[in-house]
């Protein structure tokens, strides 16, 4: 408190400035300072640890980035000034990684063939292909085998006929090992590894018989495999990889596969060898979406339905909500509070549960609506392409009208009653007064909410996916898509549902949604600003 007078008397002098700084520091308090030091210490410890792990895994760029950002954050909190940065930094860090970066990353993935069969690098693909097609070498020497384990990963410890002791796993080729204890030509102890007992071998038999430990870095050298966990033999692949020519040759059929440039080895005839690997395919995903009839058709259909669904949802909920707001905005009416309490229940009930419950009620054979309301009729609410669309709109009306009712009530009550009275004095009929005076005013305050409601419904994944799953499925489409799918549920299905994932194509669709949503919001906000200026 003593600093107070100093600050006031000579604010401009150097002393005054120093005093103010002291006051500022005193205001923070030592507890906060301690907290600050602890939090920043933990942050730095975490970032240094993370960077070390990253460097160890040879992720140099990301590791460096982690260290630099850690240092930058520390600097922000330990210098004077740049006050806004201190308040914005925590949110911005998360925003940058999990919102901005992932959007840019979507853009990158859209230009790759990332997906099932194209998950990894070319080296991994070559190894995987050669592992899939291995045969035992007829005159293979027998290796006395001991199966070992290190942090969950199985490995082979073997003795050769020459008496060498070798150790390797799926990831690391066989190599000499020191400090192993050998009894009767068999390894019984390996440093840092646990030897598996017979019971453990039986438990993990599946894993064991598929394990192949490469003999060396050269994929053509072959690998050790075992059937019984006691003896291992050399297996070699039917394929031979020629590193200089970058080709795989099938030694049995004699066919040669070359890198086709599209992330897979192909024969001259065009047969592909799977798995492939991840490559940049340029605009391929976009070109496919536009030119391939089996994708273009559903894409256009789904886009049109997404617009129709979002528009009709906003329109129906707004009309019902506004109507109810007008009906219940009469002070003479009794017990409005109780009506209102029950009416907002659909808004409070978690959306995904509502959709699941409605899906049960609309079930064609057993559902409440068919069995009780329609006396045993068999109306295909969710399996007919058009009725399913109607059902979605009905359920969304149920979900959305309470919100519109609440905001319309709020907006109506904020419009002064005198305006209507003045209009009527001027001879306007009641409906005219509402239509031309109150409604435009209401729209000014509600319009931004209508736009965000449109944007919300444009991506209303939960409702569509939980109610109909996007179905009934369109059998002719080349991708897994149905007649109530909206764009976002199509992205989800292409990327994550079923056995074939196509992250590249799914990301290309996401980019399309980005452009649509962006365009709509720009146009919409221009329009609303224009609306506001009018009044």
């Amino acid at each position, binding site marked *: 408190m003593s600093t107070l007078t100093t600050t006031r008397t000579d604010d401009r002098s150097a002393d005054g400035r120093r005093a103010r700084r002291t006051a500022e520091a005193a205001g923070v308090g030592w507890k906060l300072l301690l907290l600050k030091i602890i939090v920043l210490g933990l942050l730095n410890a975490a970032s240094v640890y993370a960077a070390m792990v990253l460097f160890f895994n040879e992720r140099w760029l990301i590791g460096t980035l982690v260290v630099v950002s850690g240092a930058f954050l520390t600097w922000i909190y330990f210098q004077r000034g740049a006050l806004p940065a201190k308040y914005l930094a925590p949110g911005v860090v998360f925003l940058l990684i999990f919102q901005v970066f992932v959007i840019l990353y979507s853009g990158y993935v859209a230009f790759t063939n990332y997906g099932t069969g194209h998950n990894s690098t070319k080296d991994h693909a070559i190894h995987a292909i050669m592992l899939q097609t291995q045969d035992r070498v007829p005159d293979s020497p027998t290796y006395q085998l001991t199966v070992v384990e290190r942090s969950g990963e199985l490995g082979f410890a073997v003795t050769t006929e020459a008496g060498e002791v070798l150790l390797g796993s799926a990831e690391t080729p066989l190599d000499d090992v020191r400090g192993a204890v050998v009894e009767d030509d068999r390894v019984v102890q390996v440093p840092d590894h646990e030897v598996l007992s017979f019971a453990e071998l039986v438990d993990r038999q599946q894993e064991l018989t598929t394990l192949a430990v490469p003999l060396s870095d050269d994929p053509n050298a072959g690998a050790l495999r075992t059937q019984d966990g006691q003896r291992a033999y050399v297996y070699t692949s039917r394929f031979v990889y020629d590193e200089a020519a970058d080709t795989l040759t099938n030694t049995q059929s004699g066919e040669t596969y070359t890198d086709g440039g599209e992330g897979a080895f192909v024969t001259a005839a065009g047969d592909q060898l799977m798995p492939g690997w991840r490559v940049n395919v340029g605009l391929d995903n976009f070109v496919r979406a536009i030119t391939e009839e089996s994708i273009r058709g559903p894409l256009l259909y789904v886009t049109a339905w997404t617009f129709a669904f979002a528009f009709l949802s906003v329109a129906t909920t707004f009309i019902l909500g506004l109507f109810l707001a007008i009906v219940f905005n009469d002070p003479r009416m009794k017990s409005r509070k109780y009506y209102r309490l029950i009416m*907002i229940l659909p808004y409070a009930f978690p959306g995904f549960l509502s959709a699941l419950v409605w899906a049960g009620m609309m079930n064609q054979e057993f559902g409440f609506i068919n069995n009780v309301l329609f006396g045993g009729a068999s109306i295909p609410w969710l399996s007919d392409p058009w009725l399913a669309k109607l059902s979605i709109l009905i359920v969304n009306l149920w979900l959305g009208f309470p919100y519109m009712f609440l905001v319309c009530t709020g907006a109506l009550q904020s419009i002064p009653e005198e305006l209507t009275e003045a209009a009527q004095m001027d001879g306007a009929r009641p409906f005219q007064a509402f239509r031309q005076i109150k409604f435009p005013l209401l729209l000014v305050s509600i319009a931004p909410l209508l736009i965000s409601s449109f944007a919300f419904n444009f991506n209303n994944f939960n409702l569509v996916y939980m109610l109909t799953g996007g179905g009934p499925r369109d059998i002719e489409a080349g991708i897994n898509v149905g007649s109530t799918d909206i764009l976002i549920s199509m992205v989800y299905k292409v990327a994550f549902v079923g056995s074939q994932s196509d992250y590249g194509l799914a990301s290309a669709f996401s980019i399309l949604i980005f452009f649509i949503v962006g365009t709509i919001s720009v146009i919409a906000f221009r329009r609303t600003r224009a609306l506001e200026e009018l009044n």
Partner: protein
Amino acid sequence: MALSQRTLTPRQPTSDPVTRGTPTPRAPTRLRSFRRWFSQTGWRHLVGVAVVIFAAFPLVYVFSASLNPGGTLITANTLFGNLSLQSYVDLFNRPQQPFAAWYVNTLFIGFSASAGSVMLGALAAYAFSRMRFTGRRFGLITILLVQMFPQLLAMVAIFLLMLSIGEIFPAIGLNSQIGLIMVYLGGALGVNTYLMYGFFNTIPVSIDEAARIDGAGHARIFFTIILPLVSPILAVVALLSLVATLSEFVIASVLLRDPEKQTLAVGLYQFISQETSQNWSVFAAGAVLAAIIPVALFLALQRYIVSGLVAGSVK
């Protein structure tokens, strides 16, 4: 007043009050007063009853189904034909579907993410509302823009990012709840800051100035003076983001793989898609329990939410 209220009703209901009202032609005064009552407020009650039935029916239905032990979809159609809590007991004895774990996970993820986003949002809103700095306008516009692109649009990229983080740091990568919370926090600024910013602006700056003259630093002003004053908006944002997290399906389903790590939204969806109509009453019991917390919070904080929703547009 009466006239002006009538103007709010665009159309009168077409049903004739005489046919509905008590048919006593010998009592014209009573009839006339009923007519007046009906045309003024009575028909509003009719609308109200209809809407209440529409709004409450699915909820009554699911509650009744949950009290029907061993019930399938078809036996649930007799409302309240059977009253027993057996389904609620069964719900917790299904090793394939660990409902209790889902519940705890959902609450843990929901409360952490919601507390985190309120904190991040409040810090940012304070900066935007109280400080003038280069890039402030740009920041506000960026946040408004980011708000337009919900995180689920980038679900593929989020999945791939978490996949590669998980290869090096399994604790925060794929199949980790901490990782999921971090992803949700990424959406915090975009969703909450604007709503909070508007509310922060309604707190007079003179309060800050008075505190500063009394020697309080920026941190003390923020934590001990501003935060208590803006608590209504904090409650609204906390609740909205809690409810949003509780029913978030896309990212949770993509990131959480083990059944015992999943949330209610993911678990109950898989429950229903595996068993369809077989164990409808058990599902209904799960739905009732899952809905209790959000509905209770919503009803308790109703007044704040409504004013928050309206403030978002009007103020």
